[in-house]
C-alpha cells in the first residue's frame, strides 16, 4: 500500500504509540488527584506543557491541550465571539477555510454575528489589503488558515498579523493544522493570538491537539467544568494523548529540519510527472506547501479514479476528507474561480517526510495507466 493522503491523516510514529501505551499503563492517575499517583501524572503533564512551550517558543500557560483541530478552531472562534460580543459582533474569515472554521462562523451567524467571508484569487490567496479593508469598528476576530488543506496555498499570515497588531480590539486566529511541521510560522511577536494544531496530521494520534492562546487572550470556554487547561478546556486531561502529541510535535519539527529538502524533491518529482500528462491540470500554485498537490482531470469522476487507484494500491483523496462526503464540487476550487469541469474533478495527493521516490514514480505510472484505461469510457 502506498499512502499519499497525508493531509487527511498521517500514520502515527511508532514512538508516539509507544508513549501513549506507556503513559496509559504507568501514569493512569488523575492529574487533579492529591495523592502521589495524581502528583506524578500532574508532573508529567507539566513537563509535557513545558516541552510544547519550548518547541513553539511560547509560554507554558499559552498552551491549551485539545482533542484536535476542530476543537481548537471552535474554541478559538466561538471563544472569542462569546467573550467579546460586547465589543463588537463582526468576524473576518475567508471562503477557503476548513469546515470547522466555516461552520463555526455560520453557527455564530445564527446567533446574530456578522461574518465577512473574504474571496481569494485564482491561486487561493487572500489579499492582505482586503483583510484590512474589511475591518470595521465591530470586528473582534480575524480567522485565516496558514496552509490550505486542498490546494496547499500558503496565506500571507505575517502580513495579516502586522495588520492585526494595529487594531488592539482585534484577535487573530490561525488554523495551522495543515501547515505545522511543514511550513514554518513564528508564533511570538507575529500578531497571532490563537493558533490551532492537530495531532493526527503530524503523525500523532487522533483526538489530540493543542491551541496556542496568547497570554491575556480571554476566551469563553466550550467546556465548563473542573477548570483544567486554564479553565478554557475543562475535563480530565487526556494525559497519554497529550504526552504523545508533544512527542509528535518534537519529532515532526526535527523532521522538518532534516527532511525539508527531501519533501520538496518528492513534490518536484510528482509535479514534473503530472505536468506531462495531458489530461491533468494542476490546481495547486507552484512553489507553495511542499506536501500538497491538487489536480483535476476534467471529464473523469474523481471517485472512480480514487477507487481504481486504490485497487492498484495507491491511496489518495478528493478534496478534504472532512467535506468529501458532502458534495461533488470543491468549494475551495470554486472560490478560486475555477470552472466547474475543474472544481468537480479534483484530486489531492499529499505527501509526508517518509514518501519515497519509487512511490512517486509508481503512483505516476498507476495514474497514467488508469487514465488510459478509462479514456474510452470517460475521457
Amino acid at each position, binding site marked *: 500500500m502506498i499512502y499519499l493522503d497525508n493531509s487527511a491523516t498521517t500514520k502515527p510514529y511508532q514512538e508516539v504509540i509507544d508513549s501513549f501505551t*506507556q*503513559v496509559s499503563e504507568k501514569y493512569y492517575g488523575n492529574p487533579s488527584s492529591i495523592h502521589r499517583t495524581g502528583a506524578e501524572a500532574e508532573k508529567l503533564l*507539566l513537563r509535557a506543557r513545558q516541552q510544547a512551550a519550548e518547541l513553539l517558543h511560547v509560554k*507554558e500557560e499559552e498552551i491549551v491541550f485539545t482533542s484536535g483541530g476542530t476543537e481548537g478552531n471552535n474554541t478559538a472562534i466561538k471563544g472569542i465571539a462569546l467573550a467579546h460580543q460586547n465589543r463588537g459582533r463582526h468576524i473576518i474569515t475567508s471562503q477557503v477555510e476548513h469546515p470547522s472554521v466555516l461552520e463555526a462562523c455560520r453557527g455564530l451567524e445564527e446567533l446574530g454575528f456578522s461574518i465577512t467571508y473574504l474571496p481569494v484569487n485564482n491561486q487561493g490567496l487572500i489579499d492582505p489589503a482586503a483583510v484590512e479593508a474589511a475591518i470595521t469598528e465591530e470586528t473582534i476576530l480575524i480567522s485565516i488558515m496558514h496552509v490550505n488543506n486542498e490546494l496547499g496555498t500558503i496565506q500571507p499570515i505575517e502580513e495579516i498579523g*502586522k495588520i492585526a497588531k494595529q487594531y488592539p480590539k482585534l484577535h487573530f486566529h490561525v488554523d495551522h493544522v495543515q501547515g505545522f511541521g511543514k511550513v514554518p510560522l513564528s508564533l511570538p511577536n*507575529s500578531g497571532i493570538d490563537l493558533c490551532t494544531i492537530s495531532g493526527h496530521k503530524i503523525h500523532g494520534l487522533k483526538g489530540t491537539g493543542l491551541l496556542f492562546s496568547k497570554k491575556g487572550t480571554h476566551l469563553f470556554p466550550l467546556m465548563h467544568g473542573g477548570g483544567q487547561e486554564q479553565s478554557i478546556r475543562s475535563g480530565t486531561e487526556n494525559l497519554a494523548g497529550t*504526552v504523545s502529541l508533544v*512527542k509528535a510535535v518534537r519529532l515532526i519539527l526535527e523532521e522538518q529540519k532534516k527532511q525539508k529538502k527531501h519533501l520538496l524533491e518528492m513534490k518536484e518529482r510528482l509535479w514534473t510527472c503530472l505536468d506531462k500528462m495531458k489530461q491533468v491540470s494542476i490546481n495547486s500554485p507552484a512553489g507553495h506547501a511542499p506536501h500538497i498537490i491538487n489536480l483535476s482531470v476534467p471529464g473523469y469522476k474523481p471517485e472512480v479514479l480514487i477507487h481504481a487507484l486504490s485497487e492498484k494500491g495507491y491511496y489518495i483523496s478528493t478534496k478534504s476528507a472532512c467535506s468529501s462526503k458532502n458534495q461533488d464540487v470543491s468549494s475551495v476550487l470554486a472560490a478560486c474561480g475555477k470552472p466547474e469541469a475543474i472544481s468537480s474533478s479534483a484530486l489531492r495527493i499529499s505527501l509526508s517526510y517518509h514518501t519515497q521516490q519509487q512511490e512517486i514514480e509508481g503512483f505516476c505510472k498507476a495514474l497514467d495507466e488508469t487514465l488510459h484505461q478509462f479514456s474510452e469510457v470517460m475521457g
Partner: protein
Amino acid sequence: MHYEYILIRYGEIALKGKNRKIFTQKLQENVQSKVKDIPSIKVKRQRDRMYILLNGQDPEPIIERCRTIFGIHSLSKAIKVDNEEEQIKKAALFALQEAQGVKTFKVTTKRTDKEFPVRSQQFNQVLGGYLLKNTEGYTVDVHQPDMELRVEIRQDGTYITSQKILAAGGLPVGSSGKTLLLLSGGIDSPVAGYLTMKRGVQVEAVHFHSPPFTSERAKQKVFDLARQLTKYGHSIRIHVVPFTKLQQKVHQVIPHGYSMTVMRRMMMRISEQIASKEGILSLTTGESLGQVASQTMESMHAINEVTNYPVLRPLITMDKEDIIDVSQKIDTYDISIRPYEDCCTVFVPDAPKTMPRKEKVNQFEQAEDFSDLLAETLENVEIVTIDSQAKEEEFDALL
C-alpha cells in the same frame, strides 16, 4: 542574506569606571553559559560592547535567550558585507524588511574606511532613497524612528545593524556577590529573588519542607519557580530543609499567638547557618511591610533579632499589585498560584500576634531546648541544583 553576529550593548556597566572590566568579564561568562550548548558560536568582548559571532546559526532563539541576561541593555542583529554599494543596499533592504513592527526608519552611516567613495552624509541619503524606492509603507523619521539602520563602513567590511531589541538591564549576575533567598511557593519570594539578581547578586535558595503537611507538589512548585529564575542568571542551588519535626515542636510548646514568630525565627537561624557554611554574606526575603502578621514592624523586629546577617528585603515597600505585576512579567505568577499548602499556611494560628513582644518571644523559646532539633534539621538538609538548561530527565523517553 544572513546575519553574521549579534551586537550586545551594556547597561549600567557602561557607568562603571575602572572596575568595568570585572563586570564585563562576568557578563561574558554569563552570556557564554547561556549559549554553551550551541558550540559553533563565539562570544567576543570589547570595551564598550560585546559580540556573538553566529557562524551560520539562526539569531532569533539566541536573542530570545540573551534578552533575560542582566547587564545587557539591548541587542541588535548585524550583517557584514563587502564595502560595495550594491551589497550594502541589499543588506540594508533585507534588514529593514525582516524587522517586525517597523514603519519609520533612519539610516546612520559611519565611514572609517575613507577609501569608500561616498561620504557618510551622502550615503545616508543614497541608502534611504534606495530603501524607500524598493519598499512600500515605510517612511523616514530622523527624530524618533522605529528602527535605526546603522551602517559602519570599516576597512575589513561594512557592518549593518538592525533594530535595537531591549534586554533586561541591571548588572551581571555574580558581580555583586551571593545571597541566600528564603524561597517559599508564594508570589513574593521569587520576585525578591529576581530583583536581587537584577542588581547582580547570585542567588542560592533555602526552602522549608514539612511533609506530610506540605506535599511533593509544593516542593516541585519551588523547583519550578527556581527554574524560572535561572532564566535570568545561573543555575540555582536549593537547600531543602526538613522542617516537620521542628515545626511540630514549636506548635506544641509555644503559645499559639507566638508560634508563628518563633517559627520564623527558627527559619532565620537555619538560613543563617546555611549561609555561613556556604560563605554567603546575606539573606533575602520576600517580605513586604504590612502584608501579613509576620511582616509588621514589631514582627520583623522580633524575628530579625536572631541574626546579624544583612537581610535584603527588596519588596519591603512595594504594593501587592506591583509585586504581582512583576511576577507576571517574569512568569512566576502562574506557578506561584498553584494551590498547594506550604509550610507557612498549615501551621498558621488563628490569631497570630501582629505585635509580638521580643521579651516574651525569648522567654517562650528559652523554656524549651531546641538546640538538638535545630542541629538535626541542619544535618538533614538536602541540596538540589536547578540548572537553567538541564530538564528533568525522568520523562524524556516519553516525550
